[in-house]
């Protein structure tokens, strides 16, 4: 973990700037930043599963989407009069609300579902796969197929999911008017607060005994098994947690964007999520957040000005980062800091980050 003073104490400054951001940014840019912070929550989950547990997943979009749909279903129902059906159901000839929509009329259940639905789904899936000790490339490929399948399923079940259009047209949540400047600002603060919370919780988790065993599993799953641990539930839980983080991020993103659709779920968005973390640094929470902000602000600017160039840039940056900066920008910062400190003559007891690569 990144351990130099800027990151050790800088969080106070960062958080302060974050809290003040609404005063510094236009409403539009604040909304943009809010979306990116929501994505950063997902990115933290990727650090947990990919960086800490060493499990590459190419299906985080699935859980991002699940969170988004959970909150969107509530918003959709709450904007209707009692007993009315969402518009797309009416056109599709659905005459009664499907049973699995019913709980989402209740805000508490809907919020709960953001956590429970992805946790159960990811847990069952991961358990089925990990218990057969399927790891590495195989796991990555299966998660990619899950992403494709889930996106296809959402699109094809138009009468109950809104299909390709997804769900949109939200009005208010808990009295908060969405899309207004005030609404944006409040939503931004909520997102920031949840991000800070998830950040702190993950920090804590990584430092806990559970986190230690998880990293131990990445280093040598066999060794850990031969110390008497059943590693499967450890990995399942890490995967489920990362899924829950993705879902929380997705729910907040949906509130910021005002829409959820299968476009967030598929293969390409899922890999892009990995790109954010790869660029920022897979072993660093700060790195992951930075990666989300850098890649997405760059995307916003480059893709408007030169839509053709964006994919070239994204592809090239990804190749270069993976080949030459496997620990991302955070790794680079760490290396430079280590170098600076060694030149400074102060101690070098902290150990090298190179060890993380060696463990592969």
């Amino acid at each position, binding site marked *: 973990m990144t351990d130099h003073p800027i990151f050790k104490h800088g969080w106070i400054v960062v958080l302060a700037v974050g809290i003040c951001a609404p005063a510094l940014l236009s409403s539009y840019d604040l909304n943009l930043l809010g979306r990116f912070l929501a994505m950063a929550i997902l990115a933290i989950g990727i650090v947990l599963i990919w960086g800490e547990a060493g499990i590459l997943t190419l299906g985080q979009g699935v859980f991002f989407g699940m969170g988004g749909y959970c909150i969107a279903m509530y918003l959709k129902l709450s904007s209707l009069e009692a007993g009315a059906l969402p518009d797309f159901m009416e056109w599709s000839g659905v005459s009664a609300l499907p049973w699995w929509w019913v709980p989402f009329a209740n805000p508490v259940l809907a919020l709960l579902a953001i956590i429970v639905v992805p946790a159960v789904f990811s847990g069952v899936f991961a358990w089925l796969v990990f218990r057969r000790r399927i790891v590495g*490339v*195989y796991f990555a490929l*299966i998660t990619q197929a899950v992403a494709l399948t889930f996106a*296809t399923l959402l699109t094809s079940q138009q009468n109950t999911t809104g299909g390709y259009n997804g769900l949109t047209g939200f009005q208010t949540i808990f009295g908060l008017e969405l899309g207004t400047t005030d609404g944006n600002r409040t939503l931004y603060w909520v997102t920031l607060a949840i991000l800070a919370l998830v950040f702190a919780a993950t920090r804590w988790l990584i430092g806990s005994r559970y986190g230690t065993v998880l990293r131990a599993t990445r280093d040598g799953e066999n060794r850990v098994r031969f110390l008497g641990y059943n590693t499967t539930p450890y990995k399942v839980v890490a995967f489920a947690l990362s899924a829950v983080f993705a879902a929380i991020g997705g729910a907040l993103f949906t509130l910021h964007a005002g829409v959820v659709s299968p476009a967030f779920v598929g293969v390409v968005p899922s890999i892009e999520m990995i790109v954010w973390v790869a660029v920022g640094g897979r072993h660093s929470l700060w790195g992951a957040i930075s990666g989300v902000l850098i890649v997405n602000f760059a995307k916003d600017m480059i893709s408007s000005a030169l839509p053709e160039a964006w*994919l070239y840039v994204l592809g090239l940056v990804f190749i270069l980062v993976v080949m030459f900066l496997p620990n991302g920008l955070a790794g680079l910062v760490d290396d430079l800091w280590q170098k600076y400190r060694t030149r400074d003559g102060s101690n070098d007891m902290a150990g090298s980050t190179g060890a993380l690569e060696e463990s592969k």
Partner: protein
Amino acid sequence: MLDATLLAGQVFNGFSVASLFVLAALGLALSFGLMRVINMAHGEMLMLGGYLAYLTYLVVPGPLAILVAMPVAFLGAALLGAVLELTVIRKLAARPLDTLLATWGVSLILQQAARSIFGPIGVGVTAPDWLNTGFLLAGVYIPSTRLFILAVAVVVLAVLGLVIARTRLGLLVRAVNQDRMMAAASGINVRRVDLAVFCLGTGIAGLAGVVLSLLGPVTPSVGQSYIVPAFLVVVMGGLGSMVGTTVAAIILGLVSAISQIFLDVSMSQVLMLLSVIVFLQFRPQGVVATRSRALEE
């Protein structure tokens, strides 16, 4: 609605779909078996094959253009494969997951390059007339294109099988596959064998691109529509085995085609994924296992 003709037709279609899966997955499986890396840009080798077929048609039109296009696409895709292997994959050989990610970056760039060169709209390759027919077999209409694709897959499998079993290259491939260290110590240039197999694999993908152009348009993203099922075939097939790949492709092809009698295409995709996950519950090592894929990897 289940009548025998429809079922028989779908069984044929299942094999036809399987033949596409085989062609798309073989190259992946071969280099995965040898080098433990998955090339996410493999789909773009299909795409390249399709565009090369298109270009060949422009240069040498005529009914036999497709027969010219096949070697052209094979060589073109193999060449691009060589460049990819030498620049990216070789450098990441020890990090399979990172190879997967880096090659995804390559895939993005290749797709965008195709868009820049050929335009975002797909180009059409018209099947020659001798392929635009078909015949009835026991009430089932057998289109020649599908039969042709099936034949190409069978020929590719047979030739590849012969290459692996009978040629010196095949011998070296098998040796490296079994014991890299010993192969190197016996004087085999293992890196060159890796390269050869990778090129062979991408070349086959190039061929797949040509036959795909008989069924649909060649677009910058054509590879993407086949690559995920191809990955599933590799996962299900077991480590780099030709037999495993073929069997897995046939299973998934049949699951896809037969389920479509009752389900729509989207639900049949769901069923395909589920069947892979269920399959792995019983045989986590895949259809054919030479080594365990658990833990030790």
